């Protein structure tokens, strides 16, 4: 049983593993994410990145092992409870309320952020909610299209919206699962700036294929292969790591 980790470790997984039937998607893994860093996880498809972060965000249960957040064992917490303590996850495939207005999307996040406790949301000051929502909207420059149906926004804006919806939840650990997937060059730029901007306030766990972006953003890079961590270090070190080059860059 691991004793409580040093103060600056925000998230820690201990021998965390998951198997689907015969396949061991994630072998027992120990991952440590420090407060305030941007941590990137890279690896080929099926390396187990998404499974790992899903266990961290609580969307799937681990087969064995534990997850600690700020030293507290949260392995048993449900996903929505983890959100409440500051672990926020954004999906790999854009996942917003496509049939609702941009405004409603943001408000749903805002009102959650404004309430503590289970049913607190039932008695909420609508004016306050509106004000907060406006702030968020203007931050991502969607104030004008607030009454537009979210699904009709350009792809990039949908991604921006999704990221923006994470803010009101006051995350301490923000898990971004391939946020630039399918975005155009300048859309990627916009997202990148937003991430840098966010990083001032929160710790970020970033799954990303776009190496350039990873090297540009990440403080630390973790490389996964076949469900296990094979390397970890500063971007530069990783770039030079022969092992990584072999499995990942295929060199």
């Amino acid at each position: 049983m691991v004793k409580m980790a040093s103060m600056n470790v925000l998230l820690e997984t201990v021998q965390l593993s998951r198997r689907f039937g015969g396949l061991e998607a994630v072998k027992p893994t120990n991952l440590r994410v420090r407060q305030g860093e941007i941590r990137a996880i890279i690896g080929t498809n099926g390396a187990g990145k998404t499974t790992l972060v899903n266990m961290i965000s609580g969307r799937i249960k681990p087969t064995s092992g534990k997850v600690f957040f700020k030293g507290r064992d949260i392995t048993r917490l449900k996903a929505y409870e983890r959100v409440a303590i500051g672990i926020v996850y954004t999906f790999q495939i854009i996942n917003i309320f496509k049939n609702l207005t941009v405004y409603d999307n943001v408000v749903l996040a805002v009102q959650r952020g404004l309430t503590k406790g289970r049913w607190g949301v039932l008695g909420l000051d609508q004016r306050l909610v509106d004000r907060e929502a406006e702030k968020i909207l203007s931050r991502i420059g969607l104030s004008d299209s607030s009454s537009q149906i979210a699904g009709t926004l350009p792809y990039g804006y949908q991604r921006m919206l999704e990221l923006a919806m994470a803010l009101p939840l006051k995350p301490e650990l923000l898990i971004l699962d391939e946020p630039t997937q399918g975005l155009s060059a300048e859309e990627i730029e916009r997202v990148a700036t937003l991430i840098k901007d966010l990083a001032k306030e929160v710790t970020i766990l970033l799954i990303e294929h776009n190496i350039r972006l990873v090297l540009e953003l990440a403080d630390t890079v973790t490389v996964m292969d076949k469900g296990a961590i094979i390397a970890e270090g500063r971007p530069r070190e990783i770039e030079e790591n022969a092992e990584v080059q072999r499995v990942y860059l295929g060199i």
Partner: protein
Amino acid sequence: MKLENRRRILTTHLSIILVLFLLQFVVPPFHATMLTRIMVFATYAVGYNLLLGYTGLMSLGHAMFFSTGLYTTGLTIYYLDLGIVEAFLLGILASFVISALMAFITLRTSGVFFLIITMIFSQVFYLTTLYFNNVTYGDQGFVLTGKLKPLELAGIIIDFSSNVVKYNFALTLFAFSFLLNLRLVNSAFGRILVAIRENEEKAEMLGYNTLGFKRLALIFSGIIAGISGSAYALIFSYVGSSFAFIHNSINPLLWTLLGGAGTTIGPLVGTGLMLYLIDFTSSLTPHYPILVGAMLIAVILGFPPGVVGGIRRRWLKWLP
């Protein structure tokens, strides 16, 4: 829901209630009784819509909630000689208990399975009313005539055998559930239900206890259905097991879909349309149930948003 719309919405709903109130002075007596019936069943539909239209859960077991109110009120008056108020409140209490129970059992399933399990539980309830027919008189049912003690409010005697009382009692209950529903769906709560309907996974990742909110929705829905059941017992003074049968679960489904699922006004419109349609066609042909069938198919195939849903889509975007 933006603030500027709130006033507009409230006035719309209040004026609908006002119109319903005024109608009783102008329409011929038969239509007054039809409206009474419509308002009772519209209340039922409002409850159903909260679950189907806003939370996206399709139940085939609401006859159970309706009948819980119906039987509790009916039996307590019949055997315990309770007053109308007590019996009515007990009816609400009972439907709360039952729907809470169901909320915790049935919501472990989802989709088609939720639909089937609610249907089966409702079937169990129906069979139970038959099984204990030495108490419930089963399919034959029992009558409350002469057992409804007139109420005395501030010197005014309220006698439930009078059509005026029936009408305004129905109106009061409808107005109550109508506005309660409006309040719910226009609140943060309602927005969460819609979020669950639209994308439960995302709603959970926004930190909402989706299961908890679904339970809450089912309970509200069940209570409102129960209220209409109790009201039916008091207004039409007959209690029988046919109200627990599956057909009575299909009715609110049809009414809601026809009027427009996920609209606050839809249930009233749907119920009104359907009851009048049946009353009209039944005098032309004995085979009016065909109409019910045709309607169900027509709405799903031809006009998914339903009447009010369509109006909202085309003209009044601000309608809740």
